[in-house]
């Protein structure tokens, strides 16, 4: 363990309740603890340790910052209440924001004081950002925005939305998109939560936009340059995503790991799932290591595929090996249901496979 991770572990020891590991299942849903953790971790420089001290970080090197994140995952640090804020919006503001935007928005987004939503998906566009139809026309320093977003996580509780809109209808589909910082309290914005099939950790919303006025100063990044903002901000999630799937897999396996009795064939399946978890962790680390060493690294799409398969097999195993106990523990089914969504967020498995086949293996582009 490096010095910096021991220092981080010391911070965790000081912050987390003594029975945190033991009663993780309970603390996982403790809103107060999660909120306070984010603020405390930010204040201590541990939330974004790779950022400079002036921005709330510790100026750590990439390897040290990743080591801190891994140490956090091993300790199962409390889940951020609003992941899109610190994980996606904040890095985008940091890279693309004006000085005024950074001053106003960066700290509250990262610390969790102001929540963010991401306005990407639209009905009928799904994984296909280039097909988005929400429009914004700029006149007299004000954008007028109309359209509809869907699957917008936590829009009902968020203050801001990084809203992707079509600003140039004439340009090629991915060239005419811009990113606006929308105040969700603006007139003309209507947010409707969508009821989910199981008890979801975060809410899902539809966002209706009817001639919403957004000042020109709220443009994030270049006009018509929204595609680049989107790609770059999703890029920041990269390591976070695989660390999270690894965590989810090990968490899903816990009932099976500690079950009093397992048959041999269940043990074989457990072994396969352990390999899944290690496959995600080690491929994530190897990718980071090769990137850091300036070497070509395995296609990042494989992390997505490995991660979703890993979580799904683990949840299915825990549900099936529980036998009749599953009838009394609906959480096992809920985890299974949630795991099926893992192949959807951030691009379906089909899309990941096309990307690998075409970009990495060099197979001809077909119809998709």
């Amino acid at each position: 363990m490096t010095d910096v991770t021991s220092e981080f572990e010391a911070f965790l020891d000081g912050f987390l309740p003594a029975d945190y590991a033991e009663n993780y299942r309970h603390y996982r849903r403790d809103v107060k603890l999660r909120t306070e953790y984010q603020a405390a971790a930010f204040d201590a420089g541990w939330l974004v340790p790779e950022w400079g001290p002036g921005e709330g970080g510790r100026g750590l090197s990439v390897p040290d910052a990743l080591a801190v994140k891994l140490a956090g995952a091993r300790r199962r640090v409390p889940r951020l209440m609003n992941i899109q804020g610190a994980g996606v919006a904040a890095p985008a503001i940091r890279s693309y924001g004006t000085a005024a935007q950074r001053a106003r928005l960066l700290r509250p987004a990262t610390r969790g004081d102001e929540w963010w939503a991401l306005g990407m998906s639209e009905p009928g566009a799904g994984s296909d950002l280039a097909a988005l139809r929400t429009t914004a026309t700029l006149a007299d320093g004000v954008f007028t925005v109309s359209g509809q977003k869907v699957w917008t996580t936590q829009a009902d509780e968020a203050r801001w939305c990084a809203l992707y809109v079509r600003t140039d209808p004439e340009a090629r589909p991915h060239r005419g998109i811009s990113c606006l910082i929308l105040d969700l309290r603006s007139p003309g914005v209507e947010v409707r939560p969508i009821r989910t099939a199981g008890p979801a950790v975060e809410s899902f919303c539809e966002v209706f936009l009817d001639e919403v006025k957004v000042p020109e100063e709220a443009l994030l990044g270049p006009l018509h340059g929204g595609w680049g903002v989107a790609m770059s901000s999703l890029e920041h999630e990269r390591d976070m995503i695989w660390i999270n799937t690894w965590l989810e897999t090990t968490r899903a396996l816990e009932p099976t790991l500690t079950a009093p009795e397992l048959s041999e064939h269940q043990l074989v399946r457990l072994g396969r799932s352990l390999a899944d978890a290690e496959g995600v962790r080690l491929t994530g680390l190897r990718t980071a290591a090769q990137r850091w060493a300036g070497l070509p690294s395995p296609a990042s799409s494989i992390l997505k595929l490995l991660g979703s398969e890993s979580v799904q097999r683990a949840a299915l195993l825990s549900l099936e090996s529980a036998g009749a106990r599953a009838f009394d523990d609906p959480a096992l089914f809920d985890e299974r249901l949630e795991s099926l969504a893992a192949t959807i967020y951030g691009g379906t498995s089909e899309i990941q496979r096309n990307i690998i086949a075409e970009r990495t293996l060099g197979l001809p582009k077909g119809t998709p």
Partner: protein
Amino acid sequence: MTDWQLLAPDEDSLALADTARAQFRSLRGPAVMRAALDGGVAGGWETVAEGGYVDIGIPEELGGIGRMIDLVVMLEEAGRALLTAPLLASALAFRTQVAAGVHREEFRRAPAGFGIAEGVVDEGGRCRVERVHVLGGHGAAAFTLVVQGPEQVWVVVVDPEGEGVEAVEQDTLVDPSRPLPAFRLGHKTGVAAAEWRELAFGDLERVLAGARVCVAADLVGTAAGALDGAVEHVLQRRQFGRAIGAFQGVKHQLADAYTAVERARSLVYGAALSLDPRDCLLANAVAAETAVRVTSLFTQLMGAMGVTFEADCHLFLRRAHQTACLLGEPDALYLAAARIERRISR
């Protein structure tokens, strides 16, 4: 007529399937399941009883009508429609009673519950079971239980209102429209059974054979219903400028799902004809795996819509998961079938 020709449903079976399909649909399974998730209670016994569905597959000398294959096509329609009326529980109870020789015609006049558990039944027919999940346990007039002891197996019929039957506190949220409440029987002095029969341990699979076929038929129907839903969705849903059903990646997954459903159906028909323990174990295992697989695919192809309450796919997934392990997890059934086959082959 050779045996295998019986694998094609005859005109009577087809007419029964059509009637059942129309009637079960009118009972609005998905809508009732959604209501049940919100705490509503699924009824519907009267409809299935008045429709005569509970007599199907019962031998004529016991007042029944039709063959095992008729029971199969009917339960498949029930699974497809996500029927919430307590038809499967009754079918499991009555088939098991018939197989164990403890069936009475009057049992069919009221909804039945069914469960498998570890426990003991003493010589006077007093039954002690620490915990048993009873399908159809709420509102059943009688529980039919397969009680596995260390060296014997018993089939018992007990009165849920009888002394010594206690409901066990639990959540059952996987599929509240077809609840699986848990009970403890005769903690202290045992519960007196209305009927009981002691069997050798080796007879267990013979007695369960019909029940396995019923569960498998229900699961095949659930898988088939999910496949229909998935096909409908990929024809409507457009991405990258075309229906997603035009993409080979989607097509191949659905073709595999179709193949899996037809394969499971073949195994269920075959098991219904033979009622051979090995065949019934395999049919149950395959139907369970197929239902989980196809309902999962349905959920995944629905994309983000698949996780909403309004989508039907989670209802199919709930039903498939709850029913898949009802008579044992698939791997354990494959194992048991392989052991039987190895005893025969060597």
